């Protein structure tokens, strides 16, 4: 009975697993093969195998672009956390209609295409946009914020804020109210209860949210391309141009794999950390 049940279960899983293998695992394997060819715009690919395309990533402009990308992602994560934590607290203390409306406000942007939201920020920040025209209407000098790192940071923060709010709120919702009552009963002030009970218990949510935001902003393309342009080139923008402009597939594949390994390490580390953390906190 159990064995035939497992066999049926295996068959039921097969199509979905097959999609992951054919559309994710095989393509990533092929990227690795392409990366082993000598770098350069050669078609058809020949020569190698070697690691020259990986070595090429150590020379300009890649290290500085990688650093900028990392800096933008870290700053996004910090901003999203600072802005998201009070909102998550407010959300987790809301009930009924207010909670429903807030959730709608948080979730709706996630259902809109990132291109549409980036376009919205272009309209706001452009020299002829809402900010520029408002300044002009007030007879102040026009300021164009478009094509700056600040614009990229603002739009990245907006686009990842909902994820952080939801991750933190999920942690806050899971806190047993008895714990807070116990802390109070044992004489802890509300500030102390907050710092020593509430904040540590949100760490799993924070780690999950932060690793997602970090990886997501590292991988973002539409926002840096539309709002930063050449003023804030990111690693993914380089990959795109390697493919479409310089036709250097080996270097593009190598850069893709570096990003992939880096992102997976971050996510895996985050998952481990938050599991260990919650194991320690909940004593399981």
């Amino acid at each position, binding site marked *: 009975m159990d064995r035939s049940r497992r066999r049926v*279960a*295996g068959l*039921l*899983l097969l*199509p*979905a697993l097959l999609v*992951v293998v*054919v*559309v*994710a695992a*095989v*393509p990533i394997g*092929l990227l690795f093969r392409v990366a082993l060819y000598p770098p350069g715009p050669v078609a*058809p690919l020949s020569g190698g195998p070697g690691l020259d395309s990986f070595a090429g990533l150590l020379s300009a402009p890649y290290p500085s672009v990688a650093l900028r990308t990392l800096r933008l992602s870290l700053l996004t994560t910090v901003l999203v956390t600072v802005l998201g934590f009070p*909102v998550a*607290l407010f959300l*987790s*203390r809301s009930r009924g209609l207010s909670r429903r409306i807030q*959730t*709608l406000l948080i*979730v*709706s*942007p*996630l*259902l809109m*295409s*990132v*291109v*549409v939201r980036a*376009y*919205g920020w272009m*309209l*706001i920040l452009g020299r*002829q946009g*809402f900010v520029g*025209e*408002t300044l*002009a209407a007030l007879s102040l000098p026009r300021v164009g914020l478009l094509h700056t790192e600040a614009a990229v940071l603002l*739009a990245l923060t*907006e686009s990842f804020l*909902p994820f*952080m709010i*939801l*991750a933190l709120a*999920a942690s806050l*919702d899971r806190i047993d109210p008895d714990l807070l009552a116990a802390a109070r009963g044992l004489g802890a002030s509300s500030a102390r209860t907050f710092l020593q009970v509430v904040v540590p218990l949100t760490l*799993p949510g924070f780690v999950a*949210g932060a*690793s*997602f935001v970090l990886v997501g902003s590292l991988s973002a393309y*539409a926002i840096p391309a539309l709002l930063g342009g050449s003023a804030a080139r990111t690693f993914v923008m380089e*990959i*795109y141009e390697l493919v*479409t402009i310089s036709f250097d597939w080996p270097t*593009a594949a190598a850069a*893709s794999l570096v990003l992939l390994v880096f*992102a997976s390490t971050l996510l895996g580390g985050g998952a481990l*950390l938050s*599991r260990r953390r*919650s194991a320690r906190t909940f004593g399981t």
Partner: protein
Amino acid sequence: MRIALGAAAVVAYGVLLLAPLAVILYSVSPGAALEIPPSGASLRWYAGLADQPRLVSGLFTSLGLGAIATGAALVTGIPAALALTRGSLPGREAILAVLLSPLSLPGLVLGLGVLTSAAVLANATGIQTAGTLLPLFAAHLLITIPWVVRSVTASLESADPALEDQARSLGAGPFATLFLVTLPTARAGIVAGAVSAFVISFGNFALSLLLASGRTVTLPVAIYEAVDRYQDPTVAAISTLTIAAAVGAALLTDRISGPLKTRGSPSRGGRQESPAGLKAVR
């Protein structure tokens, strides 16, 4: 304290509303230039969409692609969710992690991988898939299955297993139990999974960018290309339509699954959380 938190929430929700509001406001602008204060409102840019074949064909491509990707994701994802919740499989967590892993892959990288695969396939067999809908469909299927699996799994986990036992003991066969008891109890999860799958496919950009060309350009890619080209609100008009659809989808999910929840699915500690929003649209 509560007032301070409320103020922070108002600021955050304001920031989230800014970009869509800017698009909506610009879309009803009477002239091509943005005016502050606006001198009136007009729907001419919506009417003008009829003369934008690239945006219109992008819209239909995205609608069609979203529909077939969602259908295929349901066909593959629901059986997988059944196996995960009712199959008493060893390594259930690991299988679930594999099925959800595409959500954490950088979209552009995945797109490059699929493009490379299409080129290798063409070299090896002579079958040309570049420029057809197939690579896009495969890629969209990959990122929509996780949403269906996640949502249906959560729904099946919270269903009362006693119901299925009762159906069995009353003489229902395995198929009757499946179609008359198990799947109907998971209906909310299936519908929510389908809505999220469609929305994710419809709005996807990074994954589609390298795979869409010619007649297979999707709406987000068409909007991306048009943003710099048209210095008038035409793009804002079609973008506003997608914003309205997104809000509609959010309301629909809220309706189906009751108040949208931020509470996690019966969560196993700090398992790697892929987009937290997924739980919310459950």
